[in-house]
C-alpha cells in the first residue's frame, strides 16, 4: 500500500514537472512538423507516386513512423531527469526514503512514459491538422500501443542515465543509440524492400514492431499486405521487450548510490 503511494507520488512528480515545462511542450511540435511537412512532402514529391503501397501517400506512410520516432527520442531523453536529480541532490531524498527500488524505478518510468505519451498525442494532433485521417476509435486504440512502446524505451534511457555521471556523456550515448534505432525501424520506409542483411537487422530492432503496430492500427487495411507482423504479434514482441528492459532498469536502480 505505502509502496503504491510512493510509486504514485513519483509518477505525479514527473508529470507535473513535464506539464510545467512550457518551452519543452511547445518545441515538441517543431521536429515532427519538419519531418511530416518538409521531409514527407519533399520525398513524397520526388518519389512521384512510386510508393508501392496503393492508396497511401508517402506522408501517410511515415506518419506512424514519426510518432514512433517522437516516442523514441523523447523516451530516451527522459533519462536526463535521473542525471538532473543526481546533480541537484534530489535523488538522495528518493533513495533514502523507505520505499523499494522497484517502486522508485516504476514510478519514474511510468511517469516519464506518460510524458512521452503526451508527446505522441501531440504528433497525432499535428497529423490531424495536416489532414491525415484518424478516427476516434483509431486514436483510442493507438494510446495503449504508444504507451507500450514507451515503457521499454524509457527504461533504456533511465538505465543508461543511472550509470552516467554527467549530462555530456549521457548526450553522447543517446545519439549513438537513437539514430540507428530510428533508421532501422522502417519508420521512413517499409522494410520488405530492403536488402536482406538490412532486413535482418531491422527485424532485431524492437522499435520496428512498435512502428508496425502503429501502422497496423492507423493505416489499417491499406497496410495489411505489407505488415511485418500481425498486430497481436507486434504487441507481444514489444511487450516482451518492455518486460526485459524493466527488469534491467530495476536492477540498474537497485545498484545506484
Amino acid at each position, binding site marked *: 500500500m505505502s509502496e503504491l503511494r510512493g510509486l504514485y507520488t513519483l509518477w505525479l512528480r514527473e508529470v507535473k514537472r513535464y506539464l510545467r515545462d512550457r518551452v519543452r511542450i511547445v518545441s515538441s511540435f517543431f521536429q515532427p512538423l519538419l519531418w511530416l511537412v518538409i521531409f514527407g512532402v519533399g520525398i513524397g514529391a520526388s518519389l512521384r507516386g512510386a510508393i508501392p503501397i496503393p492508396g497511401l501517400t508517402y506522408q501517410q506512410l511515415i506518419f506512424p513512423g514519426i510518432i514512433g520516432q517522437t516516442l523514441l527520442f523523447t523516451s530516451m531523453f527522459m533519462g536526463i531527469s535521473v542525471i538532473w536529480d543526481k*546533480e541537484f541532490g534530489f535523488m538522495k531524498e528518493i533513495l533514502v*526514503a523507505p520505499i523499494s527500488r522497484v517502486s522508485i524505478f516504476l514510478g519514474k518510468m511510468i511517469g516519464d512514459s506518460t510524458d512521452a505519451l503526451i508527446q505522441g498525442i501531440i504528433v497525432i494532433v499535428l497529423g490531424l491538422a495536416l489532414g491525415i485521417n484518424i478516427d476516434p476509435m483509431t486514436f483510442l486504440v493507438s494510446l495503449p500501443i504508444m504507451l507500450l512502446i514507451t515503457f521499454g524505451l524509457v527504461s533504456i534511457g533511465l538505465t543508461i542515465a543511472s550509470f552516467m555521471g554527467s549530462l555530456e556523456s549521457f548526450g553522447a550515448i543517446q545519439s549513438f543509440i537513437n539514430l540507428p534505432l530510428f533508421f532501422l525501424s522502417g519508420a521512413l520506409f517499409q522494410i520488405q524492400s530492403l536488402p536482406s542483411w538490412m532486413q535482418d537487422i531491422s527485424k532485431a530492432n524492437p522499435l520496428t514492431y512498435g512502428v508496425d503496430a502503429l501502422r497496423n492500427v492507423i493505416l489499417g487495411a491499406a497496410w495489411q499486405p505489407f505488415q511485418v507482423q500481425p498486430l497481436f504479434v507486434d504487441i507481444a514482441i514489444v511487450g516482451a521487450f518492455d518486460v526485459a528492459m524493466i527488469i534491467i532498469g530495476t536492477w540498474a536502480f537497485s545498484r545506484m548510490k
Partner: protein
Amino acid sequence: MANVIETFKLTKSFNGLTAVDKLDISVETGEIFALLGPNGAGKTTTISMLCTILKPTSGTAKINGFDIVKEPMQVRKSIGIVFQDPSIDDRLTARENLYMHANLYGVPASEQKNRIDSILKLVELEDRADDLMRTYSGGMRRRLELARGLIHYPKVLFLDEPTVGLDPQTRDHVWKYIRELKKAHDITVVLTTHYMDEADKLSDRIAIMDYGKIIALGTSDKLKETLEGDVIIIKANNAEGVMSLLTEKMGLPGAHVVNGTVEVTVKNGKSMLPRIVEAATQNDIFIESISLREPNLEDVFLHYTGRTIRADSGREPHGIAAIQRRKIR
C-alpha cells in the same frame, strides 16, 4: 531506551582510505548531539552509513533498536535527514515537496494536510508555501528541508552541516528553528558541523572527529575543562621570538600562531601573564598587547590534534549543476 543510536566499530573505507575508523559512539534519546570536525573528517560518511545510504565496510550500528545493515527499511522509517547539499525539487512548490515526502514515507493521507500546515507555520513559510522552490532563498530552502525531515515524525533527525553556505543572520535563524522543532517534536538530533560556534551553541554533547576517529567527546563545558586553564594571547613585534621563548625557555607546550598573534594554553593564566612579559623584556621582545580568555572548542581541537579547524567551505559541487547551485546560494 536510553540510547537511540549506538555504533559498533562502524568503519568505512574507500579504496584504502579509511574515512570512518571503528567508530563507537552512543547518542542518548532526546539530546542534540554534534559531530564536530574539519572537512574530510568523515562526518558525512558516518551520517550516510547511519542513514543506510552507504554500507559499512565493517561494523554496524543500531538506530531506534534497528540494525542499519539488516533492517534498513525500519531504520529509514525511524529517521529524517537534511543532507549537506540541497535536495529539494525546485520545479515544485514547497507544499508539493512536503506532500511528496509524506507519500514517500507513508504518512496517512488523512493526516498529511494537518502535519504540513503546522510544520510550515513552525518554519514560517506558510505565506510562500505555494511558490515554486526555485524562487526561494538559500535560507528558506534550508528551513523547508528541516521541515520536510520532520513530516513523518522521525525518532532521530540528522542534520549534515545545516548552515553551511548561509550568512550569519540566516544561520541564527536556522539555529532557532532547529531548537524549536526539536522542542515541538521531542526528537533526537544528530548534527555535523565544522563550525565551532554551531556545535557550542546548539548541542548538548559534542564528539570531536578527526581522520575518521572520535578524539574527544563530552559537553562543551567538559571539553573545555579538560584543557585545565586559560588561553593567553600575545601580540608582539616578533611572533617567532615569542614562540621560541614560550616553548624553549619557559617550557610551555602547545603554543601556536593564529593570524600573527601567539596563543598558548596555560594552567594558571593570571600568574603566568607577568612572567611572560618579564621573560620577553629580558629577551628584547616588545609585547604590544597581552590578554587572557577562556578556552573555546577551537583550542580543544588544537590541543588534541595540534591543528586548527580551518573554517573553509565544504566540497564544491562541479558540473552543470554547480553553476545553477551557485546562483542559489
